């Protein structure tokens, strides 16, 4: 059969030439890809990135975006719109990606809060199905929403400095909880472990580590009452530098324990309610208060 003409087995039909047909296919395919790229900015980005034509927007580490906005997006959005997972093909873990948008189009319209889907979604009333982050995750604080709105209203810039946003709510102090490294903890505990075990056998439930990730010790001798005195406290000398909290209320410790208490160089809190204070003990407690240790005793 020739490229164009009549099919021998079906003479009723005229045929297109293969060249013309595939030209149409190429044209239609290109149109479809272009329509996809137009409807889905993330798809266009993938094509540009593949061709090496993607240029990230200018940004600086001192910008309002980097200092105030990015941490909010990282904390609340990154788990679903970050490197691990891209819900709706949207990433919010970089300025370029955030400005590019997802499969439903752009979510940030620089300078326009009304046209920014991101602002609309984080500003919905609690309980709304479309609220972001979803109800299963912690919502944005009012100040965080304000920060994002100010940034978008001012043009969603990656370079405008923090000082340009004088009306932005003050940042909240960040609390950093360090991850516990069991190897480091074990190494720090090594000098204390031996004497601690001896003490725990001799005085059950009186001395413990303050937490699973700490090598510091807590002492609570209140359950032993008057059976715990100066001689017993002296037995804690090998670990005294590691003790950070001690509750000796109602025990029989007295004047002879003044030096033992002063040897607890890292002590932060001492309770001695119901303990008789002689001059030596009172002087020791005064000295400890001067060092900033919180001392709770019958005499202030």
């Amino acid at each position: 059969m020739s490229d164009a003409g009549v099919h021998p087995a079906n003479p009723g039909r005229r045929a297109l030439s293969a060249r013309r047909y595939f030209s149409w296919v190429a044209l239609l395919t290109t149109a479809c890809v272009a329509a996809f790229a137009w409807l889905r900015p993330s798809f266009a980005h993938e094509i540009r990135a593949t061709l090496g034509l993607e240029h990230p927007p200018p940004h600086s580490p001192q910008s309002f975006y980097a200092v105030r906005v990015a941490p909010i997006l990282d904390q609340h959005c990154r788990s679903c719109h970050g490197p691990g997972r891209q819900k709706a093909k949207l990433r919010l873990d970089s300025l370029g990606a955030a400005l590019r948008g997802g499969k439903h189009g752009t979510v940030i319209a620089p300078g326009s809060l009304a046209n920014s889907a991101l602002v609309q979604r984080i500003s919905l009333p609690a309980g709304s199905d479309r609220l972001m982050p979803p109800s299963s995750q912690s919502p944005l604080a009012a100040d965080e929403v304000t920060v994002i709105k100010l940034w978008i209203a001012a043009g969603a810039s990656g370079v405008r400095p923090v000082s340009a946003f004088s009306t932005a709510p003050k940042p909240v102090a960040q609390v950093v909880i360090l991850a516990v490294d069991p190897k480091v903890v074990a190494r720090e505990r090594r000098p204390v472990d031996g004497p601690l075990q001896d003490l725990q056998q001799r005085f059950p439930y009186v001395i413990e580590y303050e937490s699973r990730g700490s090598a510091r010790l807590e002492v609570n001798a209140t359950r032993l009452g008057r059976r715990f005195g100066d001689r017993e406290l002296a037995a804690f000398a090998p670990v005294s530098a590691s003790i950070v909290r001690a509750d000796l209320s109602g025990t029989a410790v007295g004047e002879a324990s003044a030096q033992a208490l002063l040897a607890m160089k890292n002590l932060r809190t001492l309770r001695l309610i119901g303990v008789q204070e002689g001059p030596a003990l009172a002087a020791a407690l005064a000295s400890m208060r001067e060092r900033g240790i919180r001392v709770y005793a019958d005499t202030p």
Partner: protein
Amino acid sequence: MQTPLKLVRVWDLPTRVFHWSLAVLVLCSWVSAENGLLKLHLWSGLAMLTLLLFRILWGFVGSSTARFGLFVRSPRQALGYLRAMKRSEDHLYAGHNPAGGWMVLTLLAVLSLQAVTGLFSNDGVRFFGPLAARISAAWSDRLTTLHGTVFDVILALVWLHIVAVLYYRHVRANDLVVPMITGRKPDAMVPPGPPLKFVALRWALLCLVFAALLVWWILRP
């Protein structure tokens, strides 16, 4: 005066209903996913899984043109067919041609993978596939990502399928669409040979019920 075309039956009703139902379900799954209608997406996916299981069964017990044993040829034969087509040689087949047979297998495999990964997927917020709780969250996330990627492959395969079907219609003057609706082809487009065998409809219904029960059994709590 032109003589009326003599038509020959080539496709049975179950295969045709399967083909068009699958096309509708792929479209329905796409639209429902794009618009967040995940309950509809789930039912569409389950219906697709049932149909795919049915088609696999039908490929072993169905009519001549539906059977894998008759339309799946070796890759060498499929390549030979494509080369012959490039030389504008015509080879007639009552059902799937050797290249089309491989396209059918590929689509069945990819759509099955899509349906199965969908069972384990989650949207991280409100939707969890019926089997998502049976694997770890990390694996569910991985399969969710795969579910999204495989869909792009399906789109490409569907596009290729449509391009090929239209190629036959407009370049080779061999309409594959109307026979897939009516089940009949012009006599001149069917190679001579022993008559095709058609299996009774009740066997198709039995296969469909079996497939539905299998899906129900897989998803039972």
